[in-house]
């Protein structure tokens, strides 16, 4: 089980984009590795998605949990939406029975934000000329089990 949170995941320009009706997607990539002599063996790799939207008319934010879960949570404030989108709890990475004991493992995670959808035409072209997404570096936790 892993938990982590993303800080400063919604800078001002993302907030403006959200309020302009752009759907923003957060992708969390979680990897569990077993370091070897020269390489790191990847034991598990998980992607977690959070999609954030804003309804200007209703004045609410929606957070969807995907890609497999149909769960959508509507909240009144951005802070609530950010909490839902940025705080990842109780993520099952791998069964303990699959991990040999007495070894060192590396759990690492990184986040990527991108524009998921826009109503504008030539979206791909706009992406090329106005790329405002970001990607964090890897954050690692080394542990022994």
């Amino acid at each position, binding site marked *: 089980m892993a938990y982590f949170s993303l800080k400063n995941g919604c800078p001002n320009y993302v907030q403006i984009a959200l309020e302009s009706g752009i759907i923003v997607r957060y992708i969390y990539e979680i990897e569990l590795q077993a370091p070897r002599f020269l390489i790191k063996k990847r034991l598990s790799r998980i992607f977690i998605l959070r999609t954030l939207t804003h309804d200007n008319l209703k004045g609410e934010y929606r957070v969807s949990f995907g890609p497999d879960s149909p769960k959508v949570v509507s909240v009144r404030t951005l802070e609530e939406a950010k909490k839902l989108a940025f705080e990842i709890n109780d993520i099952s990475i791998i069964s303990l029975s699959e991990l040999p004991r007495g070894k060192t493992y590396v759990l690492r995670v990184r986040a990527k934000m991108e524009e998921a959808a826009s109503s*504008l035409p030539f979206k791909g072209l706009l992406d090329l000329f106005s790329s405002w997404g970001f990607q964090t570096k890897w954050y690692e936790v080394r542990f022994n089990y």
Partner: protein
Amino acid sequence: MKSDLTTSEARKRRIERIIMMAAVVFIALLSLAEYYLISGFSPLSTSSNVLIFAVINLDIFLILLLGFLVVRNLTKLVFEDKKHLLGAKLRTKLVIAFISISLIPTILLFLVSFQFLRTSIGYWFNIKVEKSLDNAMTIGRTYYEGRVTGLELMSQETGRLISLRCIEEDDTINRICIEQLVNPTPLSPGIQDSSRAISLNSIEVINSFHKELFVKIWLPLVDMPPDIPHSVLNQIFEGKDSLLHSVTLEGGELIRILSPLKNANNDILAVLILGHLMPQDMSYLLDDIRSGYDDYRQLQLFQNPIKGSLLITLCLITLLIIFVSIWFGFRLAKSITEPVKMLAEATNRVAMGDLDFSLESQGKDELSSLVQAFNIMTQDIKEARRRTEETSRQLRKSYGELEHRRRYIEIILQNVTAGVISIDRQGFVTLMNKSAASILNISSDQIIGRPYSQLLTRDQAKEFEEIRQELSRSPKGTLQRSIRMEIREKTLSLLASFTILRDQDERSLGVVIVFDDLTELEKIQRLAAWREVARRIAHEVKNPLTPIQLSAQRLRKKYLDKLDNETRVVFDKCTNTIISQTKELKHLVDEFSNFARLPSARLRPTKLDDLVDDVLSIYRAGHPKIEFKLDVQEGLPNALLDSDQIKRALINLLDNAVASMTDGGKINILITYNTAENEISLSVSDTGPGISPEDLPRLFEPYFSRRRGGTGLGLAIVNSIVADHNGHIMVKDNIPNGTRFILIFPIN
């Protein structure tokens, strides 16, 4: 040229196809690589971007290709122009024209489009549009919030009433009570707020076990609302005062407000859910307002990227158009200049004489027709040349035959002993053979091309005119005449044949004169005649002379002493006269006899200088008043001569010379050897009075003498001896005075 062009063109086409295929593969690979590079680790589909990448890559590639092709073609064009290759200048002009034609409107269109784009984007973000959208959004939001607020208030009131009236002491909820509370109409008088009247379309009560305790719905069956998710319900049980949950149905958007139902202890027993169906048309209107507002805000947000992307797209399209137009210009220029170049090269080849080729014509345009016409022309020229060559060959053959005949005739003409002179209709001399020149002692260069009248004396011209008139009257067109002609103080006796030259139409082309020199023949004939006369005279006269002389001597011997003195004197004188005259006659007859009976020459190698010296020694003794001098060239060879006859000839010459110098003088004898002609020359010159010009022609005729007592046979005998030795004799004036006889004998 045909095969070369075909091979070259096919090779070029193949290379172009390979380049095209490689370009397609290259673009695909590049697009894929860029897609993965830009997508990074994302597993999500961004398929819409692939097309964009492909288009951009294609454009980049085309731009690079454009640059390459333009630079390549321009470089090629410049080099071809510098090398002054055929068609380069025309192609340069065409390319410049096409580029200008394409560039100017394209750039103009680009500038106008760019300005139009800026203006259009400015209109998009007009302040009035923004305000209208904001107002619309505010209206929509107010409407929606009014509904929600009204529903919330209704929910609070309904919840309060239910909590007061319908919750039992054991915290159970009385369904009948709720039923009575909401009946008979959705808007019960107890909970109706006239100021915020909204229709209630559903009332649900769900306990903490997510079990429906009460459900009352006033909606069509097809629009039955879905259950509220447990997670949402849980939020109410967890203490949330109110929750809004909306769902879109076919009849419109169902807004549902969730609120807790609490007992007296303020414990949450259940969740009250009140639903209001917002009409579909209104729901659509609100959606449109929201969608338009979002689009506008997004456009505003991406204003600069949109401008940039549109500008770049415009640039790419402009470059694409320029590329296509330049490329088209190159192709068009090539399609025009290539046939022209091909024609020019072909013309050069034709000019250099190469006709064994044909140009390949493609298409059905005017240039193709021109190429076909050129091919036909080349074939015609080739055929004409073949015929010309054939004709030329036949002409050469004919000319060769004619030349052969001409040379043959010329050789005949030059080698015949007869002289031939041809005169055309205008009276100009057109031909004169070597014999004619030799006979007339004149060069043909002085005669040919000149009118004959200028070459004749007045008398000769008159005579020739008479001949011409007689010739014109002659039915056969031929006339033979014996002519005596004075040429350079020499009288020639000619037998001339005049013939009119006529062509196939019997038109006169001129006159040809064929003549023989009979001068020598006449001389020989005359000499022979004289010899015959001399022989007969000698025969007829000599016989009676001896009896006459003997008779006169006998008379003298028998009767001289018997006569008286007077008679004896007469008798003596007469008999002496008879005897002396008889001796003279005898001598004369002997001379005749010698002349008539000149023996044939017996030629033997003779040393001429010794022979001459022997003769001179006799004359030196007999003529002391005359100086005799002999000059002999060194290295004089022996000549085949009859020494007796040469002595006789020399004595005759010396006699004449001595006789001409009664008061003394000088006689020079010069013997020389001409190695070139292999002749030996004997020259005898005196310082006497010389020979008058009028006597020269008859000098060697027998019995012609200006000397008193001369028989006129001496020089005739000399001439005869020289002729017997196959030599010839010449008479010249001795400088300053006297006569010089030159006898020329061949060595062999």
